[in-house]
């Protein structure tokens, strides 16, 4: 039998470990200046005798008033959210799946969007939880965990394990089913790594993006990107490969790959028809969003997919120097109606030379593109910020029409106090930490409504394939 002391130690540490080391919110210091002198010092300096009495008496009166008012206020219901926030929350799913990021063993849980609070734990065995996705309806999620992560290398697809999570909001319970068939399929592919997963809106199919690397490497090699779609009902799997003839080699790293979202977005996204799968492909310096009809015959990822949009020059914003729309977070999402692509975009307002992480003026925002023509259709919100390399701004969820988004971004006016570069710059992986103040927020009608969900700290190295951001179910 454990002693009271042992139980106390275990309980307090368990409670403390729910707080991940890197997840402290930003410090907000008061606007007023720190007092160099206390009231006594101020009174001495002012030379008025009466102030020596007046200030403490005033303070005492203020305390008395505060006690009376706090008792009165304490008995009233405090408003939880403003009307604007309530309206924004009404447009997004009520629950999401998220995990703690460290220390291990991590926790995973279903949480409420309105409060950010956990409502049900997810009993996934401990491991590195690298990718997660969700179906429509808010009750089915998939979490991908990895075990035996080889240190310093890409994460082989062969060590991944998949869990189907079913959440019953009315009961607050979670059931867990391992998807063993897909894990067995990938176990035979030690040279593949996964860059994304996406569960179809009806929860019947799981798409997995795969790249190729040589064991021991820390960056992708010039392998052939693939997409595997696994049928969760009958265990059947189909695979599409990018042809070797379509590869565009580039110095330094693999140039053709299905993009890993840098911070936790979506390499893959499904349309409501449960057939059309969008994937983001890096072709040398271009970033393409392509649409694959998974119900059609064929196994050629290039020939059997259509171009949704092409961003010429993923790196061009570094060179442009002027005004140019460029993608920011590699995170283009196909809207569930299949008509549009929404993504974070950036316009440079002032130029920063080279790769120097010097602050520049940027206009950051979210833009809607036609999935048929690739042309921009609407600006969903944009604001000017200071900052340069390493900006992260991603779409985490889209409403059917794309007019309401859950985004990860820097809020308007958010300053930078710490500046390091992160991401892929000129084809090179910059494994740094970008300590901007990002916010997870609802973007609707041009208004940004922050959610009470910690954005954590960004800058997970690209090759770790760690997402770490919440997933919301498809609408």
């Amino acid at each position, binding site marked *: 039998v454990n002693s009271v002391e042992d139980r106390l130690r275990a309980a307090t*540490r368990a409670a403390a470990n729910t707080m991940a080391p890197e*997840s402290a919110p930003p410090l907000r210091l008061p606007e007023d200046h720190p007092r160099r002198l206390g009231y006594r010092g101020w009174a001495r300096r002012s030379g008025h005798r009466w102030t020596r009495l007046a200030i403490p008496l005033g303070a005492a009166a203020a305390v008395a008033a505060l006690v009376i008012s706090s008792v009165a206020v*304490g008995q009233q219901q405090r408003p939880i959210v403003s009307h604007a926030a309530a309206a924004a929350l009404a447009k997004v799913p009520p629950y999401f799946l998220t995990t703690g990021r460290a220390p291990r063993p991590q926790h995973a849980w279903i949480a409420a969007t309105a409060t950010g609070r956990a409502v049900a734990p997810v009993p996934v065995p401990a491991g590195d939880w690298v990718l997660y996705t969700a179906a429509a309806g808010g009750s089915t999620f998939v979490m991908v965990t990895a075990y035996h992560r080889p240190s310093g290398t890409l994460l082989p697809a062969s060590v991944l394990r998949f869990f189907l999570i079913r959440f019953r909001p009315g009961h607050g319970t979670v059931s867990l089913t391992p998807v063993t068939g897909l894990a067995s399929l990938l176990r035979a592919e030690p040279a593949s790594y996964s860059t994304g997963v996406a569960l179809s809106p009806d929860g019947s199919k799981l798409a997995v993006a795969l790249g190729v690397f040589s064991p021991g490497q820390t960056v992708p090699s010039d392998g052939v990107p693939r997409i595997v779609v696994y049928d969760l009902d009958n265990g059947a799997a189909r695979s599409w490969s990018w042809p070797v003839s379509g590869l565009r080699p580039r110095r330094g790293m693999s140039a053709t790959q299905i993009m890993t979202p840098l911070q936790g977005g979506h390499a893959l996204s499904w349309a409501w028809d449960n057939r059309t799968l969008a994937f983001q492909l890096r072709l040398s310096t271009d970033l393409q969003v392509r649409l694959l009809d998974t119900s059609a015959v064929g196994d050629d990822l290039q020939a059997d997919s259509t171009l949704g949009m092409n961003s010429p020059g993923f790196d061009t914003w570094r060179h442009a120097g002027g005004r140019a729309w460029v993608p920011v977070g590699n995170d283009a999402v196909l809207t569930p109606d299949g008509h549009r692509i929404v993504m974070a975009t950036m316009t440079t307002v002032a130029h920063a030379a080279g790769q120097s992480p010097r602050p520049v003026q940027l206009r950051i925002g979210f833009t809607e593109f036609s999935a048929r023509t690739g042309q921009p259709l609407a600006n969903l919100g944009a604001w000017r910020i200071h900052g340069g390399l390493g900006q992260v701004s991603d779409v985490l969820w889209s409403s059917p029409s794309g007019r309401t988004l859950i985004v990860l971004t820097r809020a308007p006016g958010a300053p930078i106090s710490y500046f390091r570069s992160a991401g892929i710059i000129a084809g090179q992986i910059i494994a740094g930490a970008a300590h901007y103040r990002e916010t997870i927020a609802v973007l609707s009608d041009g208004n940004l409504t922050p959610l009470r969900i910690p954005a954590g700290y960004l800058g997970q190295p690209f090759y770790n394939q760690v997402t770490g951001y919440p997933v919301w179910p498809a609408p």
Partner: protein
Amino acid sequence: VDVTAKAWQGTATPGHGLQATGPPIDAGAASPAAAVTALYEAHAVGLIRLAVVLLGDRPAAEDVVQEAFAGLYRRWGQLRDQSKAIGYLRSAVLNQCRSELRRRRRSDWAARRAVVTPAGPADLSVLIGAEHSEVLAALRTLPHRQRDVLVLRFYLELPDPDIAAAMSISPGTVRSTTSRALAALGRALKEQQ
């Protein structure tokens, strides 16, 4: 002033993550904002964890720690020995947690009068399981001095003089309070069974 916190992962320990001394902070040379920010970067996680243990509610714990750092910033000019800032912060967090728990008790009382069940911080109990939740619930039934001394002793593993300094009591009182608090906690746990 609004500054971005930086994780100081190198100082995060597997246990409480709050070191007695922390990394070297050049507090004297920096502006108050920079010095307080550096302290925040080094100690925020550990202090939030301490507040989570005491309050069982992370949003409230974050608010408490923000308030403690804001208080430190306002009083920075009055701090005679800036190397003792972490001691000040720890005491401030304990005091703020005490106030928060007092406020909750008042709210609970008001809610009971209105025949409404107050919504407790279900967050933590969901994550840590029933057994640990029972212990923490029993801990929160103790008088504040007993509760604080147990947390400082068994969670932060502080020696008696540091506990005494944080709580402004004598080391002898720390020892006697610890003994009484353990007995009270044991009784509370038995009553729960």
